[in-house]
């Protein structure tokens, strides 16, 4: 009987556990998470903050008996250390556990930027359910809130904070909002949209210091000298992988744990999945960390198949994101920044906050960004990840980029069905 241990109870871990159970019914499956709640999704936290769901709404699996009934052992514990040679791990609670296959999907944690005052009371990251509870307590309607970081995570938090009715100022070091997902035009549109809804957005702005204030509990000092009063500061300034417990295992890593085509790390028997893993990128062929839900779930599934002895090659994760900033919905796919020698087309409707840009390499689409478009956007993934040869439809899309579905259908579906 194989003993499988999964460290990390996020989406990758839960899906891996379920896949292992389905694939190897006789195997012993243990899922270890260090947070007190039942496995939940961080993606859902913003919706918890705005009261759209309760805490149970964040749970990855709703049925109380979900794990028990499948024979998945869920441990609330922290793994302190792994002895890869002995295939044994040591728990914070004192015990040790042997495994045949280990899956690391411990995700990442928010970085605390090296800013004086970052540890003051009232300065929070927004990462865990516990963080959410603290933020909810301080972010009452009318409260002055400074959000540090307008990246993807920052923007998701932004939405939730603004909807709570706080006075919100957003600070971003980059020259635009969501700089790693949006080009200047798209980022600019999002900024203008947010400003139009009462959010103050300062780009190309750094925090010099945070200090306790007199008129307000906190004061945020900007690099230009301006001082902002705040009741709450939320920091969303990047993340780092949770890999310290693997010290000494000898796993190769860069920004995350490097994994091969079968999602195994450089140490046999140890696999990695989700935000902690730096795996094959479909678009570039290189190894990247894609900290997104779909990658986590695909990683989890495929890692589990391989662990259970069903060799399954991973074709690479696909970089994509969707973001809702106060009702303006944007998404990005693949190599949205384009490739050398590629062609592109751009549709800008600034008045109505609609934007679409497509990137091509030869007759294939390789990346895209969309703002203000919500219908059929998934087909961008299909076109890009499917490597669809566009033929005459490339010229059509260069003229009329919104005819994405028609391009898809013309080059796939009808050819199949006809």
């Amino acid at each position, binding site marked *: 009987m194989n003993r499988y241990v999964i460290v990390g109870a996020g989406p990758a871990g839960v899906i891996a556990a379920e896949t292992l159970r389905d694939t190897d019914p006789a195997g012993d499956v243990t899922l270890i998470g260090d947070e007190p709640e039942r496995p939940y999704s961080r993606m*859902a936290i913003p919706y918890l903050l705005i009261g759209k769901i309760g805490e149970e*709404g964040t749970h990855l699996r709703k049925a109380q008996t979900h794990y028990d009934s499948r024979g998945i052992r869920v441990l609330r514990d922290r793994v302190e250390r792994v002895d890869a040679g002995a295939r044994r791990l040591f728990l914070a609670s004192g015990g040790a556990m042997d495994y045949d296959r280990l899956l690391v999907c411990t995700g990442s944690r928010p970085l605390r930027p090296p800013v004086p005052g970052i540890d003051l009371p009232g300065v929070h990251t927004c990462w865990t359910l516990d963080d959410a509870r603290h933020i909810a307590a301080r972010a009452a309607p009318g409260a002055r809130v400074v959000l540090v970081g307008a990246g993807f995570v920052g923007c998701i938090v932004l939405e939730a904070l603004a909807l709570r009715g706080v006075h919100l100022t957003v600070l971003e070091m980059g020259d635009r909002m969501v700089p790693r997902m949006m080009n200047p035009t798209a980022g600019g549109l999002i900024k203008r949209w947010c400003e139009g809804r009462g959010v103050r957005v300062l780009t190309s702005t750094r925090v010099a210091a945070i200090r306790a204030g007199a008129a307000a509990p906190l004061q945020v000092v900007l690099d230009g000298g301006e001082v902002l009063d705040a009741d709450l500061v939320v920091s969303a300034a990047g993340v780092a992988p949770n890999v310290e417990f693997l010290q000494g295992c000898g796993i190769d890593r860069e920004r995350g744990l490097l994994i091969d085509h079968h999602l195994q790390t450089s140490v046999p028997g140890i696999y990695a999945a989700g935000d902690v893993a730096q795996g094959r990128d479909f678009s570039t062929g290189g190894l990247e960390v894609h900290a997104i839900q779909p990658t986590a779930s695909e990683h989890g599934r495929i890692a589990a198949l391989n662990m259970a002895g*069903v060799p*399954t090659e991973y074709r690479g994760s696909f970089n994509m994101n969707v973001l809702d900033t106060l009702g303006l919905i944007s*998404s990005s796919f693949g190599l949205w920044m384009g490739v050398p020698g590629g062609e592109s087309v751009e549709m800008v409707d600034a008045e109505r906050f609609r934007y679409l840009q497509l990137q091509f390499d030869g007759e294939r689409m390789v990346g895209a960004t969309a703002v203000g478009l919500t219908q*059929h956007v*998934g087909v961008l993934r*299909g076109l890009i990840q499917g490597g669809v040869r566009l033929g005459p439809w490339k010229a059509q899309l260069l003229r009329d980029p919104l005819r994405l*579905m028609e391009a898809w259908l013309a080059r796939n579906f009808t050819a199949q069905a006809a």
Partner: protein
Amino acid sequence: MLRSLHIDPQKCTGCLQCEMACSYENEKVFNPAKSRIKVFNFHDEGRFVPYTCTQCAEAWCLHACPVEAITKNKLTGAMEVADSVCVGCKVCTIACPFGTVNYNETTGKVIKCDLCGGDPACAKACPTAAITYVDANFTGLERMRAWAAKTSAGARA
């Protein structure tokens, strides 16, 4: 016996009865903009192509959902969105490579074809049998699924 929607674009006249039936069944309004099935118009070729979710085996939407709002109906085989669970994060809308899961800004939830619980309104409304609800072994579905598998991020074993 599992049944599935079968679409024959050759028979479609572009009347949009399917879109109205769908929006009426699901949203209680005649509104093609809220339909889960969509007829695409290739005007210059004189061709109309109805298109909706194939309930694909990969179920990209289901796996992408962070809160288990999308589940498979074992009777119909349809991936269904539970409105009470969906938080509106839209990840499924970008995860579905067929573009058939869409965000509904009015409700703040996503919508997709759920085969109307096993009695699809679009098929009933179609005047030319371009959309039929047939035995899933009928060839078309398998072809579509084969294609879906080809695009799979994780290749088959």
